[in-house]
């Protein structure tokens, strides 16, 4: 089936039936996942899926419906429902699809599709996952069991068509390997987690290195204990730092800023961190997991610095919010076929610094190196962060014993000011948000 044509046909049908503007967002995908356990397949899943969402504007009112039913009758119902729903919404002059000016010229994404991933032999994932498990076991005898070990791939296609002249599509590939071993000693269980997730097979780390690193991370947590309540320098490893910068970026959501419901609301143009802190959203990052020529409503993606050498420079916008805030859309409309676009990040990362992480640790007398956080992260409205933390204790610049059942708490604005070290080890681990190791001058740690 020619999905690009189908998307156009749905748009035509909607305008014919009374929509002033219409836009179809269509997704098609196929994926396959495998999990292994004790040298055997645990489960194997294969699927194909598709769906289309239709956005219409009628007399300034917005309606949206979606379906995974591509039968003629299903698509007919989709159009009728979207039109009917527009009746229930309030009219607004701001409603409207991105126009010619906003659609503009597409940037250069480079390749997003790897034929080697799309054509992976059927048993490749099983073999790779078994190798991951074997390596994880071989790394340390204290591995007692696994939560899961697995591999997966998928191929996705996206098509957008609109009455305003948008017509485009692209396809991409993804492949991943992960392990969640559980180590055991003296009655204590500790889990480890490691993953690699890439668009290109050649970029993917070896199964052996995934398995070994997962085990190292589990085993080093054995013997974990609480420490006293105190204020100390705290480091976040790249995984934890990535979730921290995702939290920071939530406050750069142009809609929240416009509504004064963000800690960044009144701070544009101000210095929030040192020169060494640059936080970027980049929809055109070469080989990035979220790299795409256009966003969920056809607007070209681009590179947007949120914190540029410490200064809060840009917020993220979709077309609607940009119009509302009298700003420029940044190509940050995120969506699936089953939802309206909303503002989100693409490839988000903190640019790396010069120092290797070991050096950032060595410079700390007593402190805490956090390797996983529990909880939902920072509140983007108030900037408050209070989360459970696991990690390793630092004494005289050396990692010593494991720590658990403590929390770290602070305010993001204060934490940005206190961010005094950025490692050279930027990595994207399992998602489109990446970061290097970061260090904060002082955070409150709650324990005994």
């Amino acid at each position, binding site marked *: 089936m020619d999905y690009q044509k189908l998307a156009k046909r749905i748009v035509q049908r909607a305008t014919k039936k009374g929509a002033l503007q219409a836009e179809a967002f269509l997704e098609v995908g196929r994926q396959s996942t495998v999990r292994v*356990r004790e040298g055997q397949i645990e489960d194997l*899943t294969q699927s194909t899926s598709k769906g289309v969402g239709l956005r219409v504007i009628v007399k300034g009112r917005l309606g949206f419906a979606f379906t995974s039913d591509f039968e003629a009758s299903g698509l007919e119902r989709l159009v009728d429902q979207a039109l009917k729903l527009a009746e229930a*919404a309030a009219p607004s002059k701001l409603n409207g699809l991105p126009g010619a000016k906003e659609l503009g010229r597409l940037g250069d994404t480079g390749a997003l599709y790897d034929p080697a991933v799309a054509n992976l032999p059927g048993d490749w994932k099983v073999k790779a996952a078994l190798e991951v498990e074997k390596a994880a076991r071989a790394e340390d005898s204290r591995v007692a069991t696994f*939560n899961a070990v697995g591999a997966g791939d998928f191929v996705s296609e996206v098509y957008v068509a609109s009455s305003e002249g948008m017509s485009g599509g692209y396809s991409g590939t993804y492949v991943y390997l992960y392990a969640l071993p559980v180590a055991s000693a003296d009655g204590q269980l500790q889990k480890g987690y490691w993953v690699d997730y890439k668009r290109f097979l050649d970029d993917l780390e070896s199964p052996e290195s995934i398995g070994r690193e997962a085990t190292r991370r589990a085993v080093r947590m054995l013997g974990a204990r609480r420490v006293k309540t105190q204020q100390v320098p705290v480091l976040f490893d790249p995984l934890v730092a990535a979730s921290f910068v995702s939290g920071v970026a939530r406050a750069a959501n142009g809609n929240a800023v416009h509504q004064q419901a963000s800690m960044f609301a009144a701070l544009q143009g101000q210095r929030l961190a040192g020169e060494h802190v640059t936080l970027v959203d980049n929809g055109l990052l070469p080989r990035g997991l979220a790299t795409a020529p256009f966003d969920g409503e056809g607007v070209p993606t681009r590179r947007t610095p949120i914190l540029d050498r410490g200064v809060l420079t840009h917020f993220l916008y979709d077309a609607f919010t940009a119009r509302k805030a009298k700003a420029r859309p940044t190509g940050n409309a995120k969506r699936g076929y089953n939802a309206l676009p909303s503002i989100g990040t693409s490839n988000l990362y903190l640019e790396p610094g010069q120092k290797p992480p070991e050096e950032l640790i060595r410079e700390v007398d007593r402190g805490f190196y956090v390797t*996983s956080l529990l909880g939902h992260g920072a509140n983007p409205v108030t900037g408050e962060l209070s989360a459970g933390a696991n990690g390793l204790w630092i004494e005289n610049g050396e990692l010593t014993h494991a720590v658990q059942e403590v929390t770290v708490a602070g305010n993001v604005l204060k934490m940005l000011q206190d961010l005094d070290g950025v490692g050279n080890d930027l990595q994207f681990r399992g998602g489109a948000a990446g970061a290097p190791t970061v260090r904060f001058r002082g955070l409150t740690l709650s324990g005994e």
Partner: protein
Amino acid sequence: MPRASAPPRRAPPSQLAPLAARRPVPAPLLPQGLLERLLAVAMERGGDFAEVYVERTQSTHVVLEESRIKSAQTGLVQGVGVRVISGAKVGYAFSDDWDEPALLRAASTAAMIAQSTGAERAFPVSRVAVPSHYHVPTPLSDVEVALKASLLTRADKAARAFDARVAQVNAAYVDQTRRIAVANTEGRYTEDTQDLCRLSVHVVAQGRKNERRTGMYGGGGRVPFTHWETFPPEEVAREAARQAVATLGAVDCAAGPQTVVLAPGWSGILLHEAVGHGLEADFIRKGTSLFAGKLGEKVASELVTVIDDGTVSSGRGSINIDDEGTPGERKVLIENGVLKGYLYDNLNAKLMGQRSTGSGRRESFRHLPIPRMTNTFLAPGNHHPEDILKEVKRGLYCATFGGGQVDISNGNFVFEVSEAYQIEDGKLGRPVKNATLIGVGPEALKNVSRVGCDPRPDPGMGVCGKNGQSMPVGVGLPTVRIDNVTVGGTQVG
């Protein structure tokens, strides 16, 4: 009762919809003949068990922002999943294309997990009647969207009228009418229609010098739309606004161990995180939970009795059948502090020589079923809530909660307290901000020293995530006192 703990009361929705008003049984999602053909194909390579899962979910989502209905949307998601089990191995394939050839292809893909060349066999199924724990005479998908939207405009008005410091109100209404059918090679065919709705209101209050506080409240369940007559959006909105305004001027929370008193209701996520997940049979079978091998052992204070109940009338987590076709159940997990049982789905139950407790749930046909909680609550005790508070010289009163999370292996759990007050000499003092509680499941439950006589379910807004699958759940807790809990905050000493 302390003022900080008065969420709107919820009328028992079963009274709203008498059994006589049950809606007619709809036509089957897939013809029985096709289901049986799919089972036969699924077993053609000699699997031990196969199951066909059919789902059709119609949903509505209305959003209000800046006092306007920003959008209204509806959607249809439908698909069929075929699962084949061979020993401990599972093959699964799903399709959102209901064309017979596409479904047969999915069945034969799933069949590949089994290696032998089994003979052609027939797998007749017959419909098994299931109990009914929710009564929604008119499907929520049939209710006019304009009515749903009007709930939000009413909520917006009430929130803004509550206090001049209310600066921003966002509200959302979501519902779904989810029909499922499960047929398996044991001959069972079951069907259920699961309506579910929720209204939620987020409020930002603005204090002096750019101080912002947030409040969030919501509720719903497997209830008819008339639920909103007795649980009006105005009440939901005022509670969200109250939280936001009440916490303006909050002081930094002291870090370190404290005595905490939990308000009844939504605080039940403590149980959900501290013990519930650790009792799910997949973690137990794999030995990745610290509760594995502890049946019959004392894992909590004797004041603690924990129950998971899929049969609560109209509950958000209630199920007539789970997503493997097993009826929902009421299960005592911990009785007077002693570990009594785990939560089983079919696969883990079989591998462990047990029977399913009706805990096999899945987000949609795109997912494999896994053991999950339904409505999890702590049985009430004898202590009067006012006495519980009065007895505390210094501590923290936790009135409303954000979310929680647990690391199954080491048992570390957190839950975020969105509204809390200092307790001084048995009375509530200043509001504190940025508090999180952390503990290790069994240790925290051993420190439960008072359990109130005021059981309360949450108002119906819980979402539980596990293995990337989201699931509606209910929780509940009476007023509870826990000693020596590590409280995360920013204030040292």
